[in-house]
C-alpha cells in the first residue's frame, strides 16, 4: 500500500465529478485529480502536474463553443468514446463512475457507470472494483426513487460500514462528494492518516 489518502474523485466541470479506479498512472492520466475545490488533499499538488485528459478537453469545448457547457450525458459519452478509442491502442485500465447535475434533466442528477473497455450505462446507483461485490446488493435494497441528499449519503455510509466490516482488503479512509445545483462539494472526508 503506497498511499492512504489519494482522492480518486476528480471534478470534471463545475457540475460534474468522476470517480476513477485502477492503476495509478492511468488513473491520474485519464482524469484530473485533486485540483480546484478539493481542499482536503492540497499536498497532492505534484499529481496536478500530470496530464489531465478528460477535464481539459471538456474545458476546451466550453471555451471553443462560446461558454456552452456540456451536459452530463455528453460528458459521459465523450469519456466513453475516449476509453473505447484507447482500448485498441493503449487501453486505460480505469473504471469510471461519472455523476453530474443538469438543470433541464428531470431529477437533476444523473449517474453513468463505465468500465475500462468503454461500455457506458446510465444507472441509479453503481459501484466499481471489489466494492461492487458487497455494495450493489445493499443499494439494490435501499435505493428508491426520490431520495434526498441526506438519505443518499446515508446509503453510501451504509455501504462503507459494510465494507469496513466484511471486506478483507478494505481501507477505511473514504471521501464522499455530492454534486447538486450548487456544484461539487466534499461532504465527508475521513481524517488524513498522514496527519497522525
Amino acid at each position, binding site marked *: 500500500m503506497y498511499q492512504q489518502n489519494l482522492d480518486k474523485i476528480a471534478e470534471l466541470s463545475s457540475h460534474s465529478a468522476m470517480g476513477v479506479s485502477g*492503476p495509478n498512472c492511468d488513473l491520474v492520466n485519464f482524469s484530473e485529480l485533486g485540483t480546484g475545490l478539493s481542499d482536503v488533499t492540497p499536498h497532492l499538488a505534484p499529481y496536478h502536474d500530470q496530464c489531465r485528459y478528460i477535464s481539459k478537453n471538456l474545458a476546451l469545448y466550453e471555451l471553443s463553443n462560446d461558454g456552452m457547457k456540456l451536459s452530463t450525458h455528453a460528458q459521459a459519452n465523450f469519456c466513453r468514446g475516449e476509453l473505447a478509442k484507447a482500448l485498441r491502442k493503449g487501453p486505460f*485500465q480505469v473504471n469510471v463512475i461519472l455523476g453530474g447535475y443538469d438543470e433541464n434533466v428531470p431529477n437533476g442528477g444523473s449517474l453513468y457507470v463505465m468500465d475500462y473497455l468503454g461500455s457506458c450505462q446510465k444507472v441509479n446507483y453503481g459501484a466499481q472494483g471489489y466494492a461492487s461485490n458487497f455494495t450493489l446488493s445493499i443499494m439494490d435494497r435501499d435505493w428508491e426513487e426520490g431520495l434526498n441528499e441526506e438519505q443518499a449519503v446515508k446509503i453510501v455510509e451504509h455501504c462503507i460500514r459494510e465494507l469496513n466490516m466484511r471486506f478483507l482488503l478494505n481501507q477505511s479512509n473514504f471521501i464522499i462528494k455530492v454534486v447538486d445545483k450548487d456544484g461539487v462539494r466534499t461532504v465527508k472526508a475521513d481524517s488524513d492518516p498522514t496527519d497522525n
Partner: protein
Amino acid sequence: MIYITLRITIKKIKQNTISTIKLYASGAHENHNLHGKRRHTLHSFFQFAPTQTQHHQSHHNRTMSILEYNGAAIIAMAGKDCIGIASDNRLGIQFQTVAMDFKKIFKMSDTLFVGLAGLATDVQTLDQLLRFRMNLYELREERAMTPQVFTNLLSNILYEKRFGPYFVEPVVAGLDEKGSPYLATMDLIGATSTTKDFVVSGTCDGNLYGMCETLYKPDLGKEELFETLAQALLASVDRDALSGWGGVVHIITKEGVMSRELKGRQD
C-alpha cells in the same frame, strides 16, 4: 463417426425428416469444444484473459470468450408484412450484473432495426458508427437506406477490422421498399446470411435456435408474432446465466413500430 452418420442419413432419407435432424444433431456433438458451448473454432481465438484489474473474477475455471463478457440474447422473426426483433436487458461484467436496462436493439429508421449482441463497448460504438454512416448516406443520396444496403455496409465495416474485429454479432431486421420483411445476421467479421424465417444471436444462441425452430410459423400477424417472439426469448434466456432480466420486443409494420417491455425472471 461422420461416416456412420452419412450412411444412416442416406438410408433414412425417405423416412420422416425428424429422424434425419436428430442424426445431424448427434453428429454435431463432436464439434463441441471443451467448454461445451461455442461450436466455431474462430471464436476460440478470442478467449478473454482477465486483466490485472479484473482478476478477482478469475477464480472460476474456464476463461470466457470475449463475446460472452457482457451477455446478450437477440431474436428477429418475419411475419406477414411485418418483422419483429427482441432482445434481453442484461448488462453484466462476466458473472456480475451491472444493469437491467441495457439497450441492444437500435432503431436506424422507422423500418430498419439492428440488434447487436456481444461486447458492450463495441455494441455502443457500432450503434454510433452505423447511425453516422447511415445519415451520411441519406444526406448524399437523398433517399432512405434499404435493409440490403445497410447489411452490406455493416458487413464491410466489420470486415475492415478483420484482424482486430469489433466483437459483435449483429442481427438486421427491416422492411424493404416494397414492405416485405428482410432478415440478416452476420458473424463478428461480417459473413452475412439472409433468411426468410428467423435469425438469432447472443450467448444463448443454441437455446434461441431451438425455441424459434419449435415455435415459428410462417405468415404470423402482428400480435401472434409478438407472442411467439416473447415466448421464444424468455424461455431461452431462462436457461442462460448471462442473459435475461426481462426483455424488449419491437414489431415493425408499414403503419409503425410497436414496442413492448417483457417482464420475465429477474435473474
